[in-house]
């Protein structure tokens, strides 16, 4: 037993060096050559960081496309979903309120046009994406507020739509931050 104990302690120390020293340091070194240089890819406007490409942020102003509801108000110092059950009556009220609010700002919407992702909280609370339909329903509002041609905005959305992996796997989606940055750039 004593022999095993000594061997265990020594083996643990050796493996700590290999697995917790060498391994992550190597990845950290390699990650320095990635797009975000290992710190996460940032989006810049006029030389200033306005966000991370992968981290969703809160958009509430009418001139912007809005993202999904977030249980943590897009606070990226943490993360979290609502953890509300499908059968929870309070949760039904939350969703109904979101539907009503969307209809208020988009009075032209018809029943059945609102996609589920726009009225449900994401898993992380930081979802950077919305569905194509989620962007499509907002085009008219954004165009009206910015006094732009609806087609111009629709084209911009189309250009900012990310297609399935290799055209085959997974859903299409729109990165809300990138789309809004592109919108701001239109005026210039």
């Amino acid at each position: 037993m004593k022999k095993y104990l000594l061997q265990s302690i020594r083996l643990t120390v050796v493996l700590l060096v290999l697995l917790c020293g060498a391994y992550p340091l190597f990845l950290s070194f390699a990650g320095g050559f990635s797009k975000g240089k290992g710190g996460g890819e940032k989006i810049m406007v006029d030389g200033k960081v306005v966000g991370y490409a992968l981290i969703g942020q809160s958009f509430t102003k009418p001139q912007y496309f809005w993202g999904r509801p977030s249980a943590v108000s897009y606070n990226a110092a943490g993360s979290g979903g609502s953890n509300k059950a499908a059968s929870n009556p309070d949760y039904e009220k939350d969703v109904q309120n979101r539907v009503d609010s969307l209809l208020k700002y988009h009075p032209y919407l018809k029943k059945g046009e609102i996609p589920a992702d726009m009225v449900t909280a994401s898993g992380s609370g930081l979802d950077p994406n919305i569905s194509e339909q989620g962007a499509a329903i907002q085009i008219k509002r954004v165009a009206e507020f910015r006094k732009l041609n609806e087609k111009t905005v629709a084209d911009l959305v189309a250009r900012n739509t990310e297609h399935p992996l290799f055209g085959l796997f997974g859903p299409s989606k729109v990165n809300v931050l990138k789309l809004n940055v592109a919108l701001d750039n239109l005026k210039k």
Partner: protein
Amino acid sequence: MNTELFGIIATYLLTVVLAIPLGIYLSKVFAGEKVWTDFLKPLENGIYKLSGINIKEQMNWKQHMKALMTINLVWLVYGFFVLLQQDKLPLNPDGNPGMSPDLAFNTVISFVVNCNLQHYSGESGVSYLTQHFVLMFLQFVSAATGIAAAVVFFKAFRDKTTTALGNFWEFFVKSITRLLLPLSVLMGLIMAFSGTPTSYQGKDQFISLQGDTVHVSRGPAAGFIAIKHLGTNGGGWFGVNSAHPLENPNYLTNMVEMIAQVIIPIAMVIAFGYFIRRKKLAWMIFGVMTIGMLMLLFPTLSSELGGNPAIAKMGVSQATGAMEGKEVRFGPTASAYWSTVTTIISTGSVNSMHDSGMPLTGLWQLLGMMINSFYGGCGVGMLNYFIYLIIAVFISGLMVGRTPEFLGHKVEAREVKIAALITLLSPFLILAGTAIAAYVFTNHGGAAWAVQPKTWLNNPGFHGFSEMLYEMTSSNANNGSGFEGLGDGNTFWNVSTGFVLLLGRFLPIIGPVAIAGLLGAKKFIPESAGTLKTDTLTFSLMTFAVILVLNALSYFPALALGPLAEYFTLFK
């Protein structure tokens, strides 16, 4: 066509295609045959030398288990104290506090036993030092522990009669150097170049496009995420695990993470067959496991893609399925697939919030964890399946009036007793644990504790009960996923699940290894007309039936009170 469906089909096929050669490779590695990774031998010899290990020393099954328990005990003590003191140690750029004793107790156990329950949140509850030197370290070594234990079990059936079952340290070290570490480096690189951070910088701050000040948690997460999946650990760097955009940036990484968590469990089944030179038996086991997985996957897909009827009534379009708690970049289909594989295999990482899934999805997740051997965790999946196999051998033997035998060794009272005890352990821990929690919640809801029991649940009614049932089931299965609405970061849950975790890990490892060790030492009886063959279709069906019957009998009442009752209220 449906690109979301294509995505998961491609993922599964790729997993199997990669797992088969990996399994053959593993059988050679552990048999000591020549393989292309032999260039790593000097590294291994160095590790043995520094640790004072002589791998030529043969161990019997008891010595194996002593070595296993000893080193696991060392990790428990080491991890506990480092977690307590993390605020005073370096590599804590965000200034996170030390853990309370009960939280450190739960956390270290949970990572030592390959569960990763995580009653803390990655962003605020741990430092970079403890993420790497305690949690990630334990992710490697707990997976290697499971694999090494499985190899001991393989060893018992390779030769006709033997008590010399190889050297535990050799199996353990090789599981890391020949399997977990190389694959982790590869996957870590994929993660790093897909957008997962790798640098040791602390939180960042910026002004958003709209003018809000935002803080972003980061950290060297890529390597952690690789081993968390390859080792079927499941503990996330960030609080929401692989739903976090930095932890799982896009559909490609989602596929990689789904493949990574299934590949070793399948490879271990293949390795078993090649190692003991009975390939047909391995394919039969693989078949049973696959059918079991599909029987959980199809209804999960159907329940998630159908959407939430309460939301449908509001006139919202759920074209792709239910979206609460899910991420747009994965979609409901890949989230449903993930939730199935992460529960049948003891990973427990999530890319969607299981608490917000549809009621029947929760049912299939729970059942996957209760059975815990449709592929199952790294190494331990095979051990769990072996217990069912012994029960099936025993029952079939009784049915046809033949002496129960497994691979030429008589299965006698002692082995069956061990198997029966291990089978009874899971329902005991899960149901007794849930019963105690439900009792405290209903009868002592107002107890003057730091967190009052009546505030535990995030959802009322049947689903609230499911939250408690899920936590106990996940602990016993060493899974680690949760219905995260449950307020589990307090003394009651930390301590109660801590004990469930320990018992649910080590007894189901020692039991099967003991059976294998006892059987392997018995006289070998050559196959004759009277032998009950275990690699036939009939026997496979028998094993499948045993798995279903045992679990249905054990858990149906609890499942009826939770997810089934919720289903009937929502879809009335």
